[in-house]
Each structure stands twice: as C-alpha cells, then as structure tokens.
C-alpha cells in the first residue's frame, strides 16, 4: 500500500508532465485555482494519466466529487485496496 507522500510524489510527476509549464509541487490542500495551467482540458488529461498509472477507471460521480488533491489521493488509496 502506497503512502500519501508517495502518491503526492507520483502526482507531482503527472501534473508536471501534462501541464508542461515547469515543476508542479502539490499538497493535499492544493486545488485547481492554486496551479497555473490546471484548466479543464488539462484536468481531463491528468485524470486519464492517473487512471493509466494506477490501472483503474474513475466513475463520473467520483470525478465530480473531487475538491482538492487530498480528495484525489484518498480516492486513489480507496480504489487501490
């Protein structure tokens, strides 16, 4: 089971790769407003990359209920069980 810190590291990589405007450093409290370039199109790509990385698909309601990076991490932990 991955820790929250490990997942944040992996998410940093994904966000940096997709947004492609320099290093991204996330915390559990980070929201889309806090990161330059985290717009709705990049969000779709980020979700896609997370699904590829962890090998599962999110349902639409799951995606809708995400409010910050912490929610995403919890969801990843939940779905990895």
């Amino acid at each position: 089971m991955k820790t929250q810190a490990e997942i944040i590291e992996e998410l940093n990589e994904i966000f940096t790769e997709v947004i492609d405007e320099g290093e991204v450093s996330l915390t559990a409290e980070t929201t889309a407003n806090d990161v330059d370039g985290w717009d709705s199109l990049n969000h779709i790509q980020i979700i896609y990359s997370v699904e590829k990385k962890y090998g599962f698909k999110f349902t639409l309601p799951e995606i809708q209920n995400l409010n910050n990076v912490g929610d995403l991490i919890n969801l990843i932990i939940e779905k990895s069980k």
Partner: protein
Amino acid sequence: MNFNSLKKNLKKDFSPKRHFKLAILGDTATQFLSTAIAGYAVEEEIKIEIYEAPYNQIELQFKNPSSDLHAFNPDYILIFEAESKLRDDFYKTAPLERNSFSETKIEIIKDYANAAKEIGATLLYLNFCEINDGVYGNYAAQYPNSFLFQCRQLNLELGKLASTITGFYIIDLLNLQNTYGINFIKDKQLLIQADMYFTLDFLPIVAKNIIDVIKVRLGDLKKCLILDLDNTTWGGIIGDDGINNIQIGGLGIGKAYSKLQYWAKELKNRGIILCVASKNTEHIALEPFQSHQEMILKEDDISVFMANWDNKATNIQKIQEILNIGFDSMVFIDDNPFEREMVKQNLPKVTVPDLPENPVDYLDYINSLNLFEAANITQLDTKRTEQYKEEAKRVKAKTYFDDEETFLESLNMACHAELINSFSLPRIAQLSLRSNQFNLRTVRFDEEILAKFNSNENHHVISFSLKDKYGDYGLIAALFLEKREQELFINNWIMSCRVLKRGMEKFTLNYLIDFAKTIQCNQIIGEYLPTPKNLLVQDHYKDLGFNDIGNGLWALAIDTYQTFKVQIQTII
C-alpha cells in the same frame, strides 16, 4: 505516439517543409482533436494553422459569408459529426420520415461540400461509426426505419457523393472502428463530461489518418514497394532450399506469404511500382518468378529486380536511380532486422517497417501503417517498365561508395570460434546438410562422420558463432580441415548467407592461419568444386589472396600471411 507527446510537439521549434490552413468544424468539442492534428503534423514537418469553429456551428459558419470560417480562408475544412449526435437527430425525426433520414442528411452534407468549394477549400469529412442502438436487435440490420440501417446507408451514400465531387475526401473512421473497436475509439465518460467524442488513446490514430489524406493531396505519397525475397516474399531460402521447397501457397506456412504476394500484386495493379532487393544469385532468385506454379508475383510484375550480394542500401540506391523517384516515396519490406537497420541508417528517407516476427502478422502490421494512401488512381504503363529494364542494365554495373567499415564497426560484432565438441556437433551437422550457396566443396558431414573426425588427430573441425547488437545468430560457419604432413587441406568451408558481407570470411581465415601454426603447418590448400548453387563462392580463395596452383586448387603460405583487418571482436 501518445496524445501528450503530440501536445508537446506544439511547443517545438522546427522548420516546416509545408504549411497550410485547416478549419475544424464539429458537433462535439474538438479542442483535443485539433491539438492532436497539429501535433501529429509536426511529426511530418508540417505546420498547420488551425481555426476551430465554436462548437456546433457547422451550418452557421458555412452559411454566413462574414463568418470567421470565411475570413480564415482555409485550405482544408475538416468536419466531424459524431455518431452520437446523429443518433439524437434520428430520434427527433418523425417515425414516418425515418426511412429517408440518410437522404435528408446527405443533402445537408452536399450543401457543406458546395459551400467548401465556394470558399476554395478541400473538404475532409469523417464518416460515421456504426453502432446498433439496441432498439431492434439484429433486426435493425434489415429494417430501414432503424438507426443502424440509416447510418449504414449514410456511410455508403457519403462514399458515392465523394466519388462524384472533386475536392471532397472521406476520412474513413468506420474502417478505424473495424480495426480498433468502438470502445477504443469512443470515450463515453468524456462525452458526458466534456462533450468530447474520442479517447485520448485514439486521438493520435485519427490525427495520423487525417494528415495522411492531406499529405497525399500535397503530393507526398508512396510510389514504390521494394520486397526482400527469402522469408519475406516466400518462406525459406531459395538458394539453400531450392525451388521445390520454398514455402508459398500450399507448402508449410506458404499461405501467409501468398497473402502478402496477392496484396503486392493488387498494389501493382493500382500503379505502385514493385521492385526486388535480395541477397541472392540472380538466376536462382528469378526462378520462382518464372516457373513456380504457386507464385502470384511473376517476373513481369517486378520493374527492377536486384538480386546480388551487394548490401541492400546500395541496391535501393540503384533502384532509386533507375526509377528516378524520391527515396521518401519508397517502402522497403524485409524480415531481417540487420538489413532493415542498414537501410534505415544509410537511407533514412526510405520507409522501412519493423515487421513483426511472425509472418502471419506481416500484412496486418503493414496495413496498420496506412502506407499506400491514394489521392486518385493511375495505371502504371507497360512502356515505362521496359524503360526501367533498360535503365537497370546501366545502373546495375555501378558501384557506390559506402562507408562500410564504419557501418560494420557500429554493429559491435563478436565471434566465438571453437573446436568441435558435443554441443556444437549436431549444429555443425545441420549447417553442413543445409547450406548450398556458401559451400566450397559441397561435401556433407552428418553427425556420425563428425563424431569419427573428433577422434582422428589429422581431422579438425572448427565452428564459428556470431552475434551483434541486433541479436545472436548462433553457429554460422564451419571449417573441416585435414592435415596432410605440412599442408592443411580445407576439406570444406561453409557459412550461412545471413552473415555475408561482414568480414566474417576474413575473420575465419585469420583464425585458420593461427590454428595452422599451432599444428605446425606451413601452407593452406583450398579447393572450389562448382555446383549450380555455389557460384557465390567461385572466387572465394582468389579474393582472400590464395594462389591458383592448377586443377582447381588454391594455396596460401602461412609465413607471409598478412592478417586481415576485421570489425569483429573475438570472444574466448
């Protein structure tokens, strides 16, 4: 090629070969599609300026002469209307009008085509994925009032329409659905969430197909298919196996090769020039084309036939000179990774597909690359083929300078030589029984005889195994030696033709001389006994510096021998 790398391409600085303007109109959100197309174009050194119309404004943009579309003045207009939207329209159609749904739609598309013409743009239209909506089950296939029936009819009518209007081209999304499956193409979740149709995985593929169609319009198309022969055009090695044992048609897995030949013949009938580049003796390689009953390709189908022992890059250069077409319009098909790499390194513009290992997969793989996109159909006139034949006579005699030494160096070849042992014995026997071309005396040694040699102190058998950066070729050569007092007689020298032209002969001779010294010989004697199959090595001893001493015998003195420089490392 994934979507994100296409997106990153947009930030790349490059000097484009070509430049054009593309307008994209869709009834779903097309931002990702547009990114994928522009990003894929960068791969092809094309710069596209894109105008993306606001979502769902197709008719409006066309009809309003002061619309952004008109102002943009595009070279190409791409329309993508999704099957899901078509279905919504169908459901809104009154039941009595449903059996003419496709006709009504075709009229609208005809209007688009006319409007595009007025703008002076070429129209590209993605046809429709065909999905049964589940309302009538299988019966939908035969019920004209079903959505599936109308959708299929629409696709057919679209093709007919495009065939009658110039400047109107179909992007065959339906064919991609057949290849990849609807679940790979359509992102149901994204469709709800963002009104986007395609999955991120599929976007690079549809982008490629769109660019492929445009490229052909710009004159960038393949004109020539060059085939290797052994294990590409037929199974087996013609020089070793002989005409009756190569696999084609009914023999062995010959059907796999027949399929490839039928396809090549269809291409030829379409106007693609077929050529051959094969490491073979010419008359042996030609024989199946002239007299094998199950060969689909005949001698007449091949415009330039290059079968010799030169490297393939040189042969393809000659083919290019004879045909006088660009290297970028040539496709070279070869099962051997070594040959492919050699051509890629020396002639980077030639398209060289990395064929899968299994011959059964050759054709599907090649087709997945969509190499032979066509804009219109021309016939190859037969007079041209005659001219090519004349030109070929002149060019075949030429030699090109190739930096062969540097190339061989880059292969990182390494060879292990050893005296016969229980492990190598059956492999040596196999090579001895199979090889016909590089075989100096064509005397065969089976396992039993070899076992006897092993215990006779005047007989020595040495085997050679080779590997390079592309792989391990295993045991590829053997020397069968007989000590006659101070002389060492080469009872036979055999080698697999797969490793020709790499300095392996010289490496073998260097090794042989060292070995002869250890058993106190002062002279090597070789003999060439001609057969119909071993013309390849008729000058073998001469080329290696042996002296003709008559009666077909060749001698080499050991004390004056100058070691050959080779690009092969020795593995102990």
